[in-house]
């Protein structure tokens, strides 16, 4: 129930944002041992984990589709997308529904934290590594001592590292 309250609060604060106030705001979430953030303008809502219908013939990170109030929304497991070991979903697992180019996609994350302000000057460019998953990183945001890995949603969704069937 406590989890529900957090989700409700987050959703309420999401609904209150408009384009002007969205700038510099990131929704932060937890994945494995790190905190991540995505620009809030992409986020439409956050829901608890629910039954996902598998779709055959999809890349592994596309878990399937869910019913979001009558809308069929595909769901991506961000852990699988980053090649991290999978973990069983529990009651803290959340689906962040993002909307990019009018396409809604759900992102499965371990836990949602909060909406945080990270001004531009607190954001460092992405580190230079040769790791595969770096390409999804937009920058590193600093809040005091904490570091949030800020993700590029566009690339997270559409990076053609794995071509989606049907997009060929």
């Amino acid at each position, binding site marked *: 129930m406590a989890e529900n309250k957090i989700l409700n609060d987050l959703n309420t604060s999401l609904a209150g944002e408009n384009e002007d106030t969205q700038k510099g705001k990131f929704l932060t979430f937890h994945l494995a041992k790190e905190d991540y953030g995505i620009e809030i303008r992409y986020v439409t809502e956050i829901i608890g984990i*629910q*039954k996902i*219908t*598998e*779709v*055959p*013939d*999809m890349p592994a990170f*596309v878990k*399937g*589709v*869910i*019913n979001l*109030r*009558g*809308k*069929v*929304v*595909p769901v991506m497991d961000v852990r699988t997308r980053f090649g991290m070991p999978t973990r069983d979903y529990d009651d803290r697992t959340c689906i962040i529904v993002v909307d990019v180019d009018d*396409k*809604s*996609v759900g992102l499965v994350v371990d836990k949602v934290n909060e909406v945080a302000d990270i001004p531009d000057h607190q954001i460092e460019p992405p580190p230079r590594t040769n790791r595969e998953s770096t390409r999804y990183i937009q920058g590193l945001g600093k809040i005091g001592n904490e570091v949030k890995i800020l993700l590029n949603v566009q690339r997270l*969704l559409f990076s053609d590292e794995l071509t*989606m*069937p*049907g*997009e060929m």
Partner: protein
Amino acid sequence: MSNDISSDQIEIILEFVQESRDMIDQLEPIIIELGQSCQKGDCWDILGCQNADCHRQGHSLSLPCWLDTGYIGNGKQTCPHGSSEQDCKKCAIFQKTNGNIETINAIFRLFHSMKGSAGFLDLVHLAAVAHAAESLLDLVRSGKIQMDASHVDLLCQSCDFAKEALELVESEYNDQATAAIAMDVTARLKRAAEEALERVNQVEPVTAATVTESEPETYSPPRQEPEPEDAGAPKDAAMQCFELEITPEMVERFTQEADELLQSAEQGLLQWTEAKPGPDVIASLFRNIHSFKGNCGFFGYSDLERLSHQMESVLDLVKSGKELANPNPADTLLICLDVLRVAVADVSDGGNGKIATLTTYQQQLDALMGVQAKAGAVMPRAAVPPAPVAPPIVPSQPKPAAKDQPAPEPVKTQPPAAPTKPAAPKPASVAPLAPPAAAGSAKAATKRQDLRVDLDKLDQLINLIGEMVIAENMLIHNPDIVGLELENFHKAGQQMSKLVRELQEIAMTIRMIPVSGLFRRMIRLVHDLSLKAGKKVELVLSGEDTEVDKTVIETITDPLVHLIRNSLDHGLEPPAERLQAGKPEKGVVRLSARHEEGQVWIAIEDDGRGLNRDKILAKAISRGMIEGDGSDLSDKAIYSLIFQAGFSTADTITDVSGRGVGMDVVKQNIEKIKGKIEVTSKPGKGTRMILRIPLTLGIIDGMMVRVGDTKCIVPTLTIREAFRPVDEAITITPDGQELARVRENFYPVIRLHEVLAKEPQSHELSEGILILLDYQDKGICLFVDEILGQQQTVIKGLSDYIGNVRWVSGCTILGDGEVCLILDVGHLVEMFDMKEALGA
């Protein structure tokens, strides 16, 4: 201009536009009906009048009887068949020769209300035209003049004008720009009325044709296009009727579209100058030029039409793999393209699109095709000045007087200028004659109350209802109340379930609209085409009340236009030929719709000459589309060849059809909505095309099946039967393929759990269920654990993000909120065939 209009006013104006569009949609068929109800006839003949004293007896007089011996106007009041003006108007002769009074009244009322609303909104020009049309009708109605074909044409033109004006009103909120045309149309309507009155007074036989022909000099909008070569009276009359419709607005759209087409053609050609491109590029080039030609033909720019026609012919040769005199015609084509472009620019500046050096280019193209002496072919480029210099257009005649008047139209600047209106240009491939599919214009054949609703809102509603069904389930089967004795709660719950079901059923039907709106648009098409082709055609509509999904209607509009055009152009014979064949002079095209086998069948039938099997076969063999002599092919297989791209048996290619593009469009559109086309034809008797279309794209009957813990929906339409197999019915081939025997046939078994990569309840066929699926006469047996039941399912697309998934045609949301995939049976069968082919 529109700045000082408040948003309230805008809303009123937009509402007016919508309403008027509906009105015009209604109006057109009625006007045409009126035209048809007017027939020549003599009073003594129709009534069997024996009155020998009457001077009309035995004569065909041009003065209608009610004005001569009757009781209307200055009639001599000697006719024994009536005694008052009322009697005359009710008289069979009046009804027959001057149109049905009811029909006239209906048209009159519509024009009248348009006039009223337009006047109220200060749309003076629209009001003026409506007023003039109304006055003309009033004369007819009161019997002061006799109705003739030119009046019907004029009324149609008034409708066209109104349509154009409405479009303008929609974007500009006033109709200032239509002033010139409005004056012209009004003047023509007035003159027609005056002339008809005069005719009645002078009792001079004046035929309809001379009336229309005596007028052209007096009006000016962009039609100064003599048609020297297109001889033939009916055609001329038709051309005139078309020219009238051309407003500056349309010319602007024409030039914009032409520019786009030429540009895209140019890209293709440029590619070609380097190396011969693939067939798709050529095909798209061909299509571009074809559409361009069509538009030019429609607007009567005959030079442009002729040149592009020839370019098209060249491309056709290339397409069919023939050798050209010059292996790379791209340069020559580019030069011609530039000529076209300059001419189009001329048109957009108010010119007439003439190409002075037309013959030079034509010769070049002929040379390419090897039609003429080699001389031209040897050095096609040297013979002509380079492109930019090339097209010395006939100096455009002094701008028509109308142009100088207040504001006929901000004179078009450059053709490529961004469209000033949000309205999208008409799709190029569509025949220019096709009236644009006005959104939401469908009207029931019978009077009924309609409410215009935003489609998005509707979809939201339907989604919400779907959600409610789920919520209701969750409420009634809520784990919190399980085991409690709640008699009243359950009663209330049942009541609610029932209501929710009903609600859902109604919601399903909301998206369905009758086909009547679509059918009625065809009336105009047939009317125009029959004039143009000089054929007499009657269009018979039936089953207009049949309801189909809105999206289906939108998708089949183009195919229907193409099919009807084909029927008229190729199917029906000219009157003389029909008489020779012992058929009535007037051809009949039947357009009908009905529900059948859970689908909608839309049939287009004509009683023309039918498809020529031998000719199709010969053409197909010459194109290498089939092997052998084709004697083993069924009629059905041969007829289906006509839907191949680029296939046409037409000996001559007219500007309406004959290139083999249209049928390809038909097929593609129908396939898009998972429909089928069936062609039957009897030589000499006619052709029938049936479009079999799923009732709605949104809902299917589905059978829910289960494999392990996964559920899937199989469309019920594809299921022939389901059974639990006994071991003896299963045969396994040496390569491991299981075959199930159903009576005398063997069908391959596909295990659904393998397709979905799931763990089934049991691997033993005898412990599950086999479902015999039928797709295009190919059968397969699908192995599942069990069948859960049948249900109506609302189809939803899988997200764009996922794209197309093999074996899955969509998904649906079940009562418990879970998403369930719908199997694509066609794909399953095809996959199996491919596997077979690979394995073999």
